[in-house]
């Protein structure tokens, strides 16, 4: 049997090493899988409703938003029933916000594990991201049911929702790695996170449409990658619309850059993370 040879050197910031880091991560895929399932399993332990909560949560959220925005405030939705309009964007957003808030507290919550055994540290925040992705999958079935109820039919264009989700996942991983590494030194990140997420949500066309934003502000508004992703996701599912190529290309660029730099930085910080946690 050949023995693995490890060479440990002082940490350095390098984007070139990312290939090896990813290879290492792939070797630990079982751990990522186990921890992801662990998140889900633990969350509903000793709760009567169990996995039903995964469905119940988005439904309740949907009811609240539907009640507020369709009755009290009239939002232009391009003829789409408000419930479907809001829910179709709420799903990717919930994925993003659950994943990010989970990942932020992930490292400090496991400090006793971190100080005893090594594994690629990004697995902890990633496990929160993928657990949120599973929640998303469950709630997605609900969205399909809702769409059929209102008479929507899926077209081939709906497949564009898949790359939109992939892009969102890449972006979320980037933000989550950054936030979780920062949180190990500055607990302020976790404290500010709920407020930040609230702000971010209102800066994203979820409960309203991008059309409501004045033309003059859109340049700034579109800097938020979630705008293009949400619009693409919703447009694809509800109207079978093709993405706006220029904006999506820009978004791909931003998301991959954020993810790459964030991962490189995370791996740099990771090596001595235990010393400051």
């Amino acid at each position, binding site marked *: 049997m050949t023995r693995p040879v490890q060479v440990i050197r*002082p940490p350095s910031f390098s984007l070139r090493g990312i290939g090896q880091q990813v290879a290492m991560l792939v070797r630990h895929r079982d751990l990522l899988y186990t921890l992801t399932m662990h998140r889900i399993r633990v969350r509903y332990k000793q709760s009567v409703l169990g996995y039903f909560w995964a469905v119940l949560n988005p439904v309740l959220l949907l009811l609240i938003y539907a009640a507020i925005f369709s009755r009290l405030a009239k939002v232009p939705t391009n003829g789409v029933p408000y419930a479907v309009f809001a829910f179709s964007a709420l799903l990717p957003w919930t994925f993003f916000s659950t994943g990010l808030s989970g990942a932020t507290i992930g490292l400090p919550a496991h400090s006793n594990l971190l100080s005893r055994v090594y594994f690629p540290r990004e697995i902890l925040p990633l496990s929160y991201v993928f657990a949120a992705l599973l929640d998303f999958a469950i709630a997605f079935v609900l969205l399909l049911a809702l769409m059929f109820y209102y008479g929507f039919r899926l077209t081939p264009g709906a497949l564009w929702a898949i790359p939109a989700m992939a892009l969102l996942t890449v972006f979320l991983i980037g933000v989550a790695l950054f936030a979780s590494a920062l949180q190990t030194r500055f607990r302020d990140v976790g404290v500010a996170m709920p407020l930040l997420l609230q702000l971010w949500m209102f800066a994203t066309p979820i409960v309203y449409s991008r059309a409501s934003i004045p033309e003059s502000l859109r340049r700034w508004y579109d800097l938020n990658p979630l705008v293009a992703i949400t619009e693409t996701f919703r447009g694809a599912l509800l109207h079978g619309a093709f993405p706006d190529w220029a904006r999506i290309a820009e978004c791909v660029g931003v998301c991959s850059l954020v993810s790459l730099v964030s991962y490189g930085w995370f791996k740099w910080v990771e090596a001595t993370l235990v010393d400051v946690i």
Partner: protein
Amino acid sequence: MFDIEFNKVSKRYVRRKAEVAPARAPLWERLLRTRQDEFWALREVGFQVERGEALGIVGHNGAGKSTILKLLSRITAPTEGEIVIRGRLSSLIEVSSGFHAELTGRENVYLSGVIFGMSRREVAAKLPDILNFSGIGDFIDVPVKRYSSGMYLRLGFSIAAHLNPDILLLDEVLAVGDVPFQWKCLEYIQQMKKEGRTILFVSHDLAAIERLCDRALLLSGGRIVCEGKPNKVTLEYQQSALSVSQLPEHARTASRQIECTRFSYSNANGGAVRPGGSMSVRVDYAAHKPMQHAVFNVYLYWPSGYLCTQLTTGEKGADIATGSGYVEFFCPIVNLRPGLFLVDVAIERYPEVIDWRHRCATLRIDEGPVVSGDLHMPHEHSIVAGAPSSGALDGSQVGADIR
């Protein structure tokens, strides 16, 4: 072939002042205070461990022993230098620390097994063995929060024992658990050694180091100060122990009007102390003030920390004049078994503590006549043939007739 190589490895810890600034300090001060405290836990440490070798590392608290283990297990990274590891490495630590209370024993075996580097398939293959070894039985499908602490420990250890590493890291493992559990640990370690695994053992238990290791290192202040045969290194460690003292709570108030300056011991001829032989113990002092009723005490502890015995100048004490001098204790016959004892040296004037040097030295009793158990009782014997077995000695008490 070396399994572990340390090439000029240094590790610096930084304590940022902002962290110690009180929360009440103004915000700008907490943000701007950038002065940092540096602390070098290791300084240019270099050593190799050969395949199949057992290396022991001894040193005082803070000498850098745990840092070496942390670097090897990649929990933290070195500041300078390079470490090469050839083989799968795992440490026999409390694996149960990775347990999640809400999950069942079985689920936790999967979780911990994977965290400690096995694949899910490996865990599945070893699961029957692990369960069998742990002796948990039906409880395996019960959440571990319902476990007793013993079951917790056993399950954790049986996972650790099935990690099957090429290189084993040991850190004071024998200090936890009940006696049967410690036996299991010891048996496992001996087995690993027999199979030719490489072992790195960090411990305060010098006797264990001497028993288990082929070679030892002595660390002090983050540097290697001595390297060689375990008994040579532990001896060096004992001698270096003379210059260091750490005070327990009750001794902090010591006025040190008289200070202990040195502790030494030998047999009557200046040689090694053995059971059945003699021992003289000498405590040097420096008195800054004259004092009446000063009592000199030497406490000997078992390696486990229990008080074994005490040498004293008696409750009344003696009058000490300013200046230096020494107190000598003489024991005509040493009743202790071979091994190492921890030493406290104290000067007291009841109930006041003048000076208390906590675990300031170790005392070594070398191998002498065969002794099992804790004490050596000097004895003689005679064999009388042909006597009736019922007759006891006159006036003696009958213990039991043994059949």
